[in-house]
């Protein structure tokens, strides 16, 4: 490989003087410590490299070594349950080698190369394989079976197939030969460039919801499998708690959690919590279906930019095996800021708020990698992306929020006022929206209840009506409203505190199945309908409040366990009796 010498150093940006044979986006090793870098600019005078590790201590004239390939990650068994940094350095192995602090230039292979995997080979000599087809399988964790796939660019006839047995990462499993006679060895591991989307056979429309067990999401603003959602919110509004909730409870097979420029303690928390909690479906620790990518805010900024791509590449790899994958990115604003920082060092012309002009195109490229599809191997898989955004000063008009809104179809806006009142999840029901409601309504009708979406729309209308009435109440007080409107305010209060509020830390309110969402909505609406009739017969709202119906509704989320939905019948009967008594 060609070797070059460093000419200038400015923060994470290093240049080489003169023309080189380096390609744009090629991965390079910088300096004697072989820091990982990527070529981001090439012209006749200089080559510009961004370095993914700290450049302090680097001398000019130190060597730069080409790698010959773009910035890539290793894909193979051993990814699940691990914690990596933004460029797939395994943090546990690094800690074992270098101690509690991250030191640069530590060279550890991304995946364990010595571990023996119990491989079942599923092809025999003579079989014809094309890209994306599976040739072997192994149990990556007890929860997930890892399918080994032919790289998308390869195809051919199997000329060698190893017997079933224990193999290490780089052992040859299968050899294929294409029509020109060229052979290609398939091991347990392949490389893929992180900035290129892995191909799929066909896109499918998003008609199945990603069930997260959160009422404000599943019922009010649902996300489809293969969809993309964005959670903007100022600090302290609960973005991270919400991302953790989704990572814990959503019904995806695989979770990729990217902590991009966030707090170190949060990643530690995710790591400990996910290894202690069990997945309700497989009964195994959640960590066995999770990959954590941690590029905390004090780790090098360029690797932060890469971490999002590393995460989505992992997600696509598992999608290709036929899994439903959900990726959480917390927070995409830090990623955008990393772009801005690097763009500033390259002295590019800034656009909106100093962000580079290519911010929207990068965001759209990223969010378009989400989707439900038929994979090259013929299976169905999906990648759903949930990106947190940290707008400066909680101002949603800033470029990252606005552009993310354009490329996603689900918007869960977090609200400071709700967070201050400790109403969690602090998703504002008037500004949030989901464009998936219509395409998912069939699924809800078939799987939950025929009138699920109708109920949801009535709840939403009540909340909207309350918001309108509150404008009046703010000016003249609630006393002067007619009873009919007072009832709406009371019912909306029940919806807000009894339905929308959900305690992430509670034993069974943390995850609530959609069947219970439906029963809760039904109970609220039936009390509302009955009370409305009473009010039409001139009964005052205060009399209805005295029946205790509203209090029972507010507490039903705690009083009725998730697996005893029959008890809603008792609740409804009790409410009906109490209301009939006053009427």
């Amino acid at each position, binding site marked *: 490989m060609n070797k070059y010498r460093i000419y200038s150093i400015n923060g994470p940006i290093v240049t080489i003087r003169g023309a080189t044979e380096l390609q744009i986006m090629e991965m390079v090793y910088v300096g004697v410590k072989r820091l990982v870098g990527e070529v981001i600019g090439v012209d006749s005078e200089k080559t510009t490299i961004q370095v993914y590790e700290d450049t302090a201590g680097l001398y000019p004239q130190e060597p730069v070594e080409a790698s010959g390939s773009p910035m890539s990650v290793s894909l193979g068994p051993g990814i699940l349950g691990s914690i990596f940094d933004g460029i797939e350095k395994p943090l546990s192995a690094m800690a074992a080698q*270098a101690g509690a*602090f991250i030191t640069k230039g530590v060279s550890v292979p991304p995946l364990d190369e010595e571990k023996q995997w119990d491989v079942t080979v599923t092809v025999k000599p003579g079989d014809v394989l094309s890209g994306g087809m599976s040739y072997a399988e192994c149990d990556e964790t007890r929860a997930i079976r890892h399918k080994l796939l032919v790289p998308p660019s390869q195809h051919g006839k199997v000329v060698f197939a190893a017997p079933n047995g224990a193999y290490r990462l780089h052992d040859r499993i299968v050899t294929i030969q294409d029509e020109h006679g060229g052979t290609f060895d398939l091991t347990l591991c392949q490389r893929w460039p992180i900035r290129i989307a892995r191909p799929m056979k066909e896109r499918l429309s998003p008609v199945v919801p990603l069930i997260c067990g959160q009422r404000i999401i599943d019922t009010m603003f649902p996300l489809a499998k293969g969809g993309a959602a964005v959670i903007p919110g100022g600090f*302290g509004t609960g973005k991270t708690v919400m991302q953790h909730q989704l990572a814990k409870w959503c019904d995806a097979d695989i979770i990729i959690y990217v902590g991009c420029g966030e707090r170190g*303690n949060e990643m*530690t928390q995710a790591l400990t919590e996910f290894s202690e909690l069990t997945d309700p479906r497989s009964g195994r620790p959640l960590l066995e279906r999770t990959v954590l990518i941690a590029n905390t*805010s004090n780790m090098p900024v360029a690797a932060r930019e890469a971490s999002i791509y590393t995460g989505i590449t992992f997600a696509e790899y598992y999608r290709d095996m036929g899994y439903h994958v959900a990726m959480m990115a917390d927070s995409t604003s830090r990623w955008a800021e990393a772009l801005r920082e690097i763009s500033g060092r390259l002295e590019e012309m800034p656009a909106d708020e100093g962000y580079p002009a290519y911010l929207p195109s990068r965001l759209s490229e990223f969010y378009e990698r989400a989707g439900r599809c038929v994979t090259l191997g013929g299976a169905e898989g999906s990648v759903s992306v949930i990106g947190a955004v940290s707008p400066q000063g909680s101002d949603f008009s800033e470029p990252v929020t606005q552009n993310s809104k354009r490329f996603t179809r689900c918007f869960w806006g977090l609200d400071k006022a709700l967070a*201050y*009142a*400790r109403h969690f999840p602090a998703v504002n029901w008037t500004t949030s929206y989901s464009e998936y409601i219509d395409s998912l309504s069939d699924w809800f009708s078939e799987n939950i209840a025929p009138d699920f979406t109708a109920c949801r729309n009535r709840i939403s209308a009540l909340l909207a009506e309350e918001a309108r009435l509150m404008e009046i109440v703010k000016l003249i007080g609630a006393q002067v409203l007619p009873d009919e409107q007072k009832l709406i305010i009371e019912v909306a209060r029940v919806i807000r505190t009894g339905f929308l509020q959900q305690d992430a*830390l509670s034993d069974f309110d943390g995850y609530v199945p959609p069947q219970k969402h439906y029963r809760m909505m039904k109970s609220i609406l039936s009390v509302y309908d009955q009370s409305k009739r009473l009010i039409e017969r001139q009964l005052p709202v205060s009399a209805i409040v005295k029946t205790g119906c509203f209090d029972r509704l507010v507490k039903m989320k705690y009083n009725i366990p998730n697996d005893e939905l029959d008890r809603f019948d008792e609740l409804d009967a009790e409410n009906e009796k109490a209301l009939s008594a006053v009427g």
Partner: protein
Amino acid sequence: MILEHLGLDKISGSLVVLENVDNVFNEEMVEIRLEDGSVRAGRVVMIEGKRAVIQVFEGTRGVSMVNTRTRMTGRPMELKLSPEIVGRVFDGLGRPKDGLGEIYPLLRRNINGSAINPVERVYPKNFVQTGISSIDTLATLIRGQKLPIFSGSGMRHNDLAIQIVRQASVADDESFAVVFAAMGVKNDVAEQFRTSFEESNVMSKVVMFLNLSNDPIIERIITPRCALTAAEYLAFDLGMNVLVIMTDMTAYCEALREFSSSKGEIPGRKGFPGYLYSDLASLYERAGMIRESKGSVTQLPILTMPNDDITHPIPDLTGFITEGQIVLDRALEAKGVYPPISVLPSLSRLMKDGIGEQYTRKDHKAVSNQLFACYSGVQDARALASVVGEDELSENDRLLLRFGRDFEGQFLTQSRTENRTIAQSLDLGCRLLAQLPDELLDRLQKEEIEAYIEPFREKVVS
């Protein structure tokens, strides 16, 4: 190879440029000897071929292009460390300032530190009792946390910080230490801290790094890094529980802005550099606990919000990095409430895992949630009362108003020497909640009301 260069090729703000330098590395320390023999410290910030750009910490005033000698030290910026740093006073660059002589170093450490590997972190869970009801109950400080105080000019953040240090040290054993970093604060503020540390007999446990308001501005960029390097040494090498007080972070950020603009970088919001977030994170993230040591670094940075604006980039970015914030409020201060902590925007993110039966008391979570919810209701009731008048309010709103007054007058207010235990604070909270009817206690379940609130109701009746 150590070479000395005579003369400079360019001076721009706090930066000087040297041409024809060999063998210089990124972030190397340099010594700059002026005509009059005085020596200033500098650091290489950019290298282009044989040209090196050097940042001079004490500023370039009085530096001549011709008769200045520059020597490359061959080392990065390091702090000399040994157990004897405890009880000493240093300047903003970590040089002794108290006239007690040099430190004999056991080791030197790069002041930039290294990021803690998240795998090796211990998730902080141990409650620190500050003796201040509003903090202990509603925004609990956890050992290993970074919890800034968002204040404004003229508010009593210093008194609050001093009270926290004093009362937290009481609860702790001898492994307690304080690292105090002053950035651009007035001489008498530093003096106030020093006297109060002496009065409460913790001075022998304090390391001070002082960059006062008349000290060189660029030096301020180094001060917190020196302080945190010392704190990490005390915590992770010597196993102490270290509380780091950094004041004023606003002055630090302004120094960074000045430095950035002199380098000709593209400014971001309000002229602050685009990397302000990363830079602040490189300080705040140095709090925490690690597996291989029993010590901890807890940070209590103080920042004055320019114009009391919490959306200003400095408090805004700080809030995104730190694990919560304690916000002081001028209106409360004007009412005579001390400490004037604005409860609703204040928050401790680590609180949820560090409270409850094992750590504080069983009812802590429920009571604090209900206090928040009720106090938030107080704000609505007040807004309504200001429009329609108190007489027109419903009974519940009137009860809320009374609760609000008592909450501010009894729960928030305490004297500068009053050290309340967590049990006292929680009892006080329950007693206030007991004034309210059950229907306003919507965050508590029936059993919780009976168990925690009801006992206090009987006292009200009798």
